[in-house]
């Protein structure tokens, strides 16, 4: 059952994350609320992807916990996270290069919640991305970067998640295509999908989000609404170059 808009959906509570002996996240806490677009911005190496990977349980926090609709996520194995309703569009797309576009999309809908709606979801994705429909029989590895990003997003949508996490979807795309991708994020959000968006494209994302957090050197440095952060002196100087 969808809870009321604005209720906390995902709660990250004071997580410390290491790669081996190297600590990358320090006491990172934030929350994603039902129905919103939450943006996580930060410079290269700030720990954005690490945060996303930890939510997907690819990494395990050594301290703190992650709760999704009240249920612990950090104790699950990576392949069990999607069943909760959390999907991610990973950094660098991570398509299955030798499988066709359609097979990649089908891989997105393996969870018990998504499988019965497969045909319907496929139609939905093809409607959102007519370009992907044209290429459905082509090996994913032979697509252009932009087309691959569309397939990666489509694959995420195929899971019919409650929360969809995007890790730098604009990476390597033309300004026009970036615009198109962000428009799409807004569109699926308007249809009721909660979005956690990781971006370096601060201009754009702060303008379109409900709330944002700034991650600096593995710590949450600032938080506020998009407008608040846009007028914040530190953000203007460090991220917007104003």
């Amino acid at each position: 059952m969808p809870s009321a808009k604005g209720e906390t959906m995902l709660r990250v509570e004071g997580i410390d994350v290491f790669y081996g002996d190297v600590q990358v996240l320090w006491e990172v806490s934030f929350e994603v609320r039902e129905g919103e677009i939450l943006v996580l911005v930060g410079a290269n190496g700030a720990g954005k992807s690490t945060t996303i990977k930890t939510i997907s349980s690819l990494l395990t926090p050594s301290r703190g916990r992650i709760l999704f609709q009240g249920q612990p996520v950090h104790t699950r194995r990576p392949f069990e996270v999607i069943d909760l309703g959390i999907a991610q569009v990973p950094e660098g797309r991570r398509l299955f290069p030798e499988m066709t576009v359609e097979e990649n999309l089908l891989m997105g809908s393996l969870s018990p919640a998504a499988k019965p709606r497969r045909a319907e979801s496929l139609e939905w994705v093809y409607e959102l991305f007519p370009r992907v429909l044209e290429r459905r029989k082509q090996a994913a590895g032979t697509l252009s970067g932009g087309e691959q990003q569309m397939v990666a997003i489509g694959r995420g949508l195929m899971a019919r998640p409650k929360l969809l996490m995007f890790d730098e979807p604009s990476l390597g795309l033309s300004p026009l295509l970036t615009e198109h991708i962000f428009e799409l994020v807004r569109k699926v959000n308007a249809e009721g999908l909660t979005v956690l968006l990781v971006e370096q494209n601060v201009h754009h994302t702060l303008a379109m989000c409900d709330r944002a957090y700034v991650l600096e050197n593995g710590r949450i440095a600032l938080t506020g609404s998009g407008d608040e952060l846009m007028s914040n002196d530190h953000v203007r100087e460090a991220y917007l170059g104003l």
Partner: protein
Amino acid sequence: MEVFLQTLVAGVLKGGLYALIGLGMTLIMGVMGIINLAHGQMMMVAMYVTYVCFNYLGLDPYLILFISVPALFLLGVLVQRYTLNPLLKVESLLPENQVLMTVGVGMVLTEVARFIFTSNYVSVKTTYSDATFFLGGVSFSVALTIAFCFACALTGGMFWFLLKTDLGRSIRAVAQDAEAASLMGVNAERIRTLTMGLGAGLVAAAGNLLLPIYYLFPDIGGPFTRKAFVITILGGLGSTVGAILGGVTLGLAEAFGATYIGMEFEDMVGLVIFIAVLLFLPGGFKRLTKI
């Protein structure tokens, strides 16, 4: 011309079985990223299973497929679960350690077989073991033809499974990007275990089908592991279509080598082709077929 056709037929028929051996090896290679150096030894175990069922239960060798294939599937699953998966958990270990482990598994299987069955040659003689039929002046071995048909059916079934089912697609996905597959909800460890089982099951079918026209002793595993390795390299590591082409190529090469150069050169011709491919077509047939 007659001799040529005869050799061609013999090579293709044998190639069908080799394709089955190579397909199993390739699946394991693709998903685990390792060469299974116990592949031939697993086939040897399947042949002994067939031998025992034939000799002591009096079952028809083709019926025994329903015993030997599941038995080896189980063996593959156990090997993966209890010898290879634990190695994956130790991050400091390189994939090479898994390969070494398969060498060890192969040795254990061979020595256990020697312990139980001694080093003597045994064979399974059926009424059709030596039977032939003629088609346009070319003689076909009945047993080899049946084996070839089974091999084609199994290969076709395997392709259907890999291309058309969620489980099959998950196997390919893990081979291409295990972490991304786990984000899709695929339990990569279970897929690895399943794949090792399937690979062992496929090579079991090949061994079972080969036995009525071959002979068996505990050390037969080694040469077949080498053949499987050659087929996989010929095909392009991890390529399923390539494995089939590689299998048929090796079958043909051996047949023509035996006919036109001499029986004792059968194995050498295969190895010469192998080296030629490494030198002139690195990447194997995958370079040509792209799958």
